[in-house]
């Protein structure tokens, strides 16, 4: 049966919310890495990790999206994505499966989403059981850099 165009997504959770990024933008997924905090940067930048000799900036997606912080003791996972400025690690709560999603289940983000989240979401895939939010990596990283995530989070 000819299917509509599909795309593979690497999925992950932040709290109960289900997110995904296109698989071809993901370099690798690794467990929690020790981080070196960087002073004087926006809060969404959690620190630097050593990825086999390469230094990668880790960005806490919860903070980018204006979500509350992880509970103490809960270790985030690293989703290392490729960006035009090199690899960046996105800190997430839990990793899901790789899913193949059809384009025709895609919709623009609903207007009612909190501003911080709406700016960093490309749209929503309607899965049978739940919704998958596709993350806009460029926006998420950009928001972390400028500290906008934190600003938006407050509004």
């Amino acid at each position: 049966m000819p299917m509509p165009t599909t795309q593979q997504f690497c999925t992950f959770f932040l709290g109960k919310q289900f997110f995904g990024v296109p698989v071809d933008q993901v370099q690798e997924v690794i467990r929690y890495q020790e981080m070196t905090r960087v002073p004087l940067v926006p809060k969404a930048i959690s620190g630097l990790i050593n990825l086999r000799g390469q230094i990668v900036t880790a960005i806490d997606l919860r903070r980018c999206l204006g979500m509350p912080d992880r509970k103490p003791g809960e270790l985030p996972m690293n989703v290392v994505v490729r960006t035009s400025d090199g690899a960046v690690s996105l800190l997430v709560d839990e990793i899901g499966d790789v899913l193949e999603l059809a384009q025709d289940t895609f919709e623009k983000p609903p207007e009612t989403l909190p501003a911080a989240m709406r700016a960093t979401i490309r749209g929503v895939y309607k899965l049978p059981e739940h919704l998958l939010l596709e993350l806009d990596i460029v926006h998420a990283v950009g928001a972390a850099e400028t500290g906008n995530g934190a600003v938006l989070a407050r509004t």
Partner: protein
Amino acid sequence: MADSDDIVKEFLAESQENLDRLDRDLVELEKHPSDREILASIFRTIHTIKGTCGFLGFNKLEAVAHVGENLLARLRDGHLILNPVRTSALLAMVDAVREMLGSIESTGNEGERDDQKLLATLTELLEPDAASAGAASSGAATGGVSDVALPQEAKAEAKPEKKEETGKEEIKEELKEEKEETQEKIAPAVVPAIEAQAAEVEAEKPEAQNAAASSAATAEHAGEKSAEPESNRAPEGQHKQEVSQNTIRVSVSLLDQLMNLVGELVLARNQILQFTRNTEETSLVTTGQRLNLIATELQEGVMKTRMQPIGSVWSRFPRTVRDVAIACGKRVRIEMEGQETELDKTLIEAIKDPMTHLVRNAVDHGIERSEVRAAAGKDPEGVLRLRAYHEGGQVNIEIIDDGAGLDLKRIVHKAVQKGLIQADEGARLSDREAANLIFLPGLSTAEKITNVSGRGVGMDVVKTNIERIGGTADIQSSPGAGTTVKLKIPLTLAIVPALIVTAAGQRFAIPQASLLELVGLGVEETQQRIEIIQGAAVYRLRGNLLPLVELRAALRIAAPAVEEKSAGNNEGKSAGKSEGKSEEKNVPVPTHASDVTGSGLGEQRGAVNIVVLQADGNKFGLVVDEISDTEEIVVKPLGKHLKNLNVFAGATIMGDGKVALILDVLGLAQHAHVIDESRDRETAEASAGAARDALQAQQRRSVLLFRLADGARMAINLSAVARLEEFQAGSLEKAGRLETVQYRGQIMPLVRLSQSLNGQGMAAGGDASLQVIVVYAGDGRNVGLVVERILDIVDESFQIDHQTSRPGVIGSAVIQQRITEVVDVPGLLAAIPGMERKTIPPTLGRSAAVGA
């Protein structure tokens, strides 16, 4: 096809080198028009280019080179004399050749261009002018031929102290050999011709054993032979085989790759060394030591392969200076010192443009016109000196002109006019600071915009570019005597020795280059020798005041690792240790960076570690928690997301695999300086205020105004107020004799001010459903002050009349034109039974029990 591509590439690389030399030689020749050696060298270079491009089928290029060669031939043979017009024409020819080569490099062909005018000019100049006609003699011409072999050698030998350059020359020449070989493969028919010629020449010139330069020339002739068989300037070529085997041409990207790998190796070695420190296994320890030695040598070796003498950048400056000087109608001589000073290739590339700009600037703006100079009693010919030398793991480059110096007043004026600085700021600047204003973007003091410089872009770009590679730029000027721009460039960017320090449990690397000394102070010394001037801590270092910057405060990392812990970060051993220590020291947690730098120091501190650093000529002391070892660190760039942080130069991976940030000392100094500046300003304002009314200025303060149930106006010092809260009257609970409320998971005792101060009953507050509470934070506890209404927060100067003081009240003052009593909270609490400082903990304990 691939072969011929390779040949083109070789041709390009080599021609570029030759062209750089041409510029230099032509300018040199202009000064000594009769110097046959230089002339011969120039002729040979052009000849080579012409020959090779004829061979490769670049006809336009060949045509241009051909006319140039004709002119040169006539000059060499003494039929013509070199004059500025001819020099300019020849330089224009060099430019045309360079342009075409550039075009060949990028597009593969010579590009669409019309050289008719240039060709015409050059041809025109072939006509001898009356003056030069008689000079020719056949003897001179033959002399020219036999000298062909010598110039390169002669030049190199003339400067025996400049070994590096000689070496480089040799390499260049040897590289040419290679090319020659390639060509031989392509055109084997040419070889016998060369050899025949070589033999011939050797017969003429048996002493010609100095292979490099001349044999290279031979090589080029090989290519040219096919196109122009009648050419006959080929000296010996016998030794080329031997020389060519000593060097090979290696691509820079391969060297980069090697450098990266060595970087990784150094990291791995650091890690292994860390293991071996904790082991008894002797064989592992010895192996580790050997690895250490080998890695170090390998690192040095690979770094050397990337080193180039700075002269390779400078070689084009004589030309630049000549052109600019002629364009401005000035006479300028260039002197160079330390061309052999070596720098990493990437750095050489990086300083090329900034240096060119500085050189042009110096000639255009720095050096005056001859008549002005003569009037000022100076040599009409200006001197531009370039100096390079190693110092403390850095290369210093100085661009010194003996011109008029900077007009500091005008620079300051311009900067103020353009809104780059404030007027009062400008008035306070030191000469040096004022001079350095010219590095600000958008500042150009040129009277008229020439096509050379003065568009207000440039100096800031120079500074940015230099700083991007970890260097610094500084300018000094003395009126009438000249200007010196001083650049400091690191030798290499990749691997640097660094001191590892700890602050608030985090490790930081400080590049050794900026490190002057370490000072450790005991508790007593700390008390005595660290002094606070208006909030700025200073230390007396051998009689001089050393400003201190606290790393924790500067980076606002004073709260040690609470967040990391909550995020589940297991702090590493060393970091954990130091964290523990820093907590023992009980350093107060600062809330604002600005109020920490000084105030935290000296008083509460125990022993203090000071890292004395040098940034841009200024010394300052960095106060850190702990000083560890020095280590060779591999500098890794920070992601682009963090590039804006000028406080960090990059990051590195430590022996334990964790990431540590590298401090950018200059950036840190600036960062800390910003704080200083704002403090200076505050101080200045304060003193200005003091001049107006010393007493008032001192008494100015922020207070919270509120009203009690009986209508009394009261004030409380704002700094003692933590928060303002409202509670439902029902949420107040009784604990023993005290009223309390649950506040942020704790029990906070409440004090009804109207009751305690004015002896009124509780009835007044009882009917209000909402209780307004001022949370007072002091002595490490919270106490809620129940008031009737919050009125305002004011920042006013007022005088407290202590006559009216009573228990709990400091006195009264006129605030907002009304008499207001100022509450003395500690005094008040001390007067309330059960609230005294000492009995607080047991009281709280009891009340907790009662409350439950």
